[in-house]
């Protein structure tokens, strides 16, 4: 799904020094514009492996950046020195004027060099507080560095894309929470997973990434058709998609008896059909077949995990879904709100079909790592959500008749 080299016409994500991201299609022959961060030719990066950071020099020429640690005036210091802190020497130089900066840029001087010069020139820099120094450096860096780093779009990047454009579409899910959900769900190649994903498919995409072509996702959806918008960002063939993703709506899952069976057409009837109608018929038949298999799995071995991200009321929904889950298999529920998961826990505790329901939170805290100035980032986004994780178990009537012992 994630190619190692940049392919023509692939949708990729670019990270910019401003921490902004941008999704672009790498159309051969096109020029990709990053606004104030410059423009470059798509052809120049097609075929390159992912992993480079490029700097746009004059004339849209690309060069590779050697070092992209957060911009740092102490690059040349050894670790020992770095640990003892640093002092920027005031050189007494005047500050550069905007004109001088523009002149440097037109001479092809790199952004990093310009910042270094500006900082040298900022005579008062050493008297600034840590707080204002950082604000200053950040502003400068965002202003001058014409750099970008292409990334293939996987689940990490999908989260970034939605957090950037509309976090509510993914219910403020954080990457670390998604990562924990995948591990708690024991997602791996060959598994068959029952999935409720009311984001545009971020959870589905993440599971696809982890099954690596082997295994299936049975997606239960609320409307007539599932919303899997975000699969468009992935490199995924129609065949792969149909083989790995089965869909069924709530009514078909809980009340299959209400579904009108697709009437089997004779060979003759089929021949009379227009090709498009014939395809439609085969689709409907396939869908019906899929549904039968899904329901059969519920009655035999059950699914290998239940993974849920929906706004539907979990305390009433989940008990109805337990019968589809195999013995000792994980149940992983996401909610933006701990309160929802607390009530769900209480609903699940009323019966003995789940073991050890636990609400989990995981929050990654990022640090600034400039040598001599290490500290957690001063501000960050709230939210990230919570998980309810439990295991489906098979109660033993004999045991429970004795009464709850422990």
């Amino acid at each position: 799904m994630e190619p190692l080299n940049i392919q023509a016409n692939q949708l990729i994500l670019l990270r910019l020094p401003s921490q902004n991201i941008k999704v672009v299609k790498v159309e051969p022959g096109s020029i990709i514009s990053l606004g104030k961060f410059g423009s470059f030719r798509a052809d120049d990066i097609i075929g390159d492996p992912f992993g480079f950071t490029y700097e746009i020099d004059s004339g849209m020429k690309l060069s590779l950046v050697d070092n992209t640690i957060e911009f740092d005036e102490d690059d040349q210091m050894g670790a020992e020195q770095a640990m003892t802190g640093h002092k920027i020497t005031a050189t007494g130089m005047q500050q550069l004027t905007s004109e001088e900066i523009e002149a440097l840029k037109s001479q092809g001087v790199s952004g990093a060099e310009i910042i270094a010069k500006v900082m040298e020139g900022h005579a008062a820099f050493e008297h600034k507080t840590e707080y204002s120094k950082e604000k200053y450096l950040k502003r400068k860096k965002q202003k001058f560095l014409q750099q970008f780093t292409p990334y293939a779009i996987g689940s990490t990047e999908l989260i970034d894309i939605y957090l950037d454009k509309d976090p509510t579409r993914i219910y403020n899910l954080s990457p670390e929470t998604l990562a924990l959900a995948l591990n708690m769900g024991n997602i791996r190649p060959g598994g068959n997973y029952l999935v409720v994903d009311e984001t545009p498919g971020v959870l589905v995409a993440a599971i696809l990434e982890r099954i690596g072509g082997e295994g299936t996702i049975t997606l239960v959806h609320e409307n007539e058709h599932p919303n899997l918008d975000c699969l468009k960002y992935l490199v995924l063939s129609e065949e792969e998609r149909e083989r790995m993703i089965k869909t069924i709506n709530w009514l078909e899952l809980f009340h299959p008896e209400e579904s009108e069976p697709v009437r089997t057409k004779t060979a003759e009837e089929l021949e009379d059909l227009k090709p498009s109608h014939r395809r439609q018929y085969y689709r409907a038949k396939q869908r019906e077949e899929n549904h039968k298999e899904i329901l059969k799995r519920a009655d035999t071995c059950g699914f290998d995990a239940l993974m849920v991200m929906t706004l539907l009321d979990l305390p009433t929904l989940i008990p109805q879904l337990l019968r589809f889950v195999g013995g000792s298999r994980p149940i992983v529920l996401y909610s933006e709100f701990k309160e929802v998961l607390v009530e769900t826990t209480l609903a699940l505790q009323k019966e003995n079909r789940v073991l050890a329901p636990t609400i989990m939170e995981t929050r990654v805290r990022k640090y600034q790592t400039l040598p001599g100035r290490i500290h957690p980032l001063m501000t960050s986004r709230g939210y990230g959500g919570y998980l309810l994780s439990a295991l489906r178990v098979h109660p033993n009537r004999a045991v429970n008749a004795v009464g709850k012992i422990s």
Partner: protein
Amino acid sequence: MSFVEDKQKIEEGDHVLAWMTRSDVRPIKVQSGELLNNRYGPFKHEDMVGRSFGAQQASSANQGFIHLLSPTPELWSLSLPHRTQIIYGPDASYIVHRLKIRPSSVVIEAGTGSGALTHALARTVSKSGKIFTFEYHESRCEQARAEFESHGLSEIVQITHRNVCEDGFAIDTDIKASAVFLDLPAPWTAIPHLFEHVDRSRAVHICCFSPCIEQVIKNIYALQAAGFQHIEMVENQARRWEGHQTMVRTVEESMDLLRDIRRRRQDGMDFRHGRVEKRKLDNYNPWGKGTRVREGDEGYNWRPVSWMETDIKSHTSYLTFAILPPTSPDKYK
């Protein structure tokens, strides 16, 4: 049963994790004739054969029960013998995610430690991938090797007894890893040895796992000096809660009690102050000590609340991530 595939029914020779409580999960290999003993008495292995994974089994004396669980890296990390600090779920999952480990990935891990992360890595790379793990402590290494074999992971996990900081990563097999995880006292000394053993045609992701901030400082410098980019240090703060109910008791009830006390006194009754008050308080002790009312009992109002775990892992380690870009193509030279 192994860690590699899902099964429905327990068979002779299968690995089963016997769950009593979260803090008492025992790994067993089902062998007829053997017994698992706990405070509820003995559980016969032969009674487990043929049951479904997830089944609840009563002790022979029918005094208690266990759940027979199918092994996963997460359950294993609750039951494994602690040889070193364990890398728990929230860190393990974030490491897998950030290192972009996928089915068929090739990963270097040093050191192996208690093997908790190794199991999680092996699950994700699966049979098409490979984990090369290194442990400098000989007996820890041998214990881990035995576990990997017993868990059916030998095909995926190759463990080597080695001090990688001094002796590097070269083994018989040609390693071309796309991800590297270093949980060593001095990761910075291992970094220079990596270059020949990672896939330089692609971006290589690394994570250094160090508890102290001074180690982080050195890791960052070493990574930077070695040409790693996008260096980012984070820590993962994880919390756990249980769902509970707390009694809703109104001030009106409290005032009724006070009225009752006042009335009894005015009636000149032989009022035993302590007793009445005591009864009321007993009814409302949600903490389990001498409780008569049990959480959620009918006849009372309850409010759902969450209880945070009482012992929180307030720090595991600092995680320093970085990316080694591929070797520059000629066009950029």
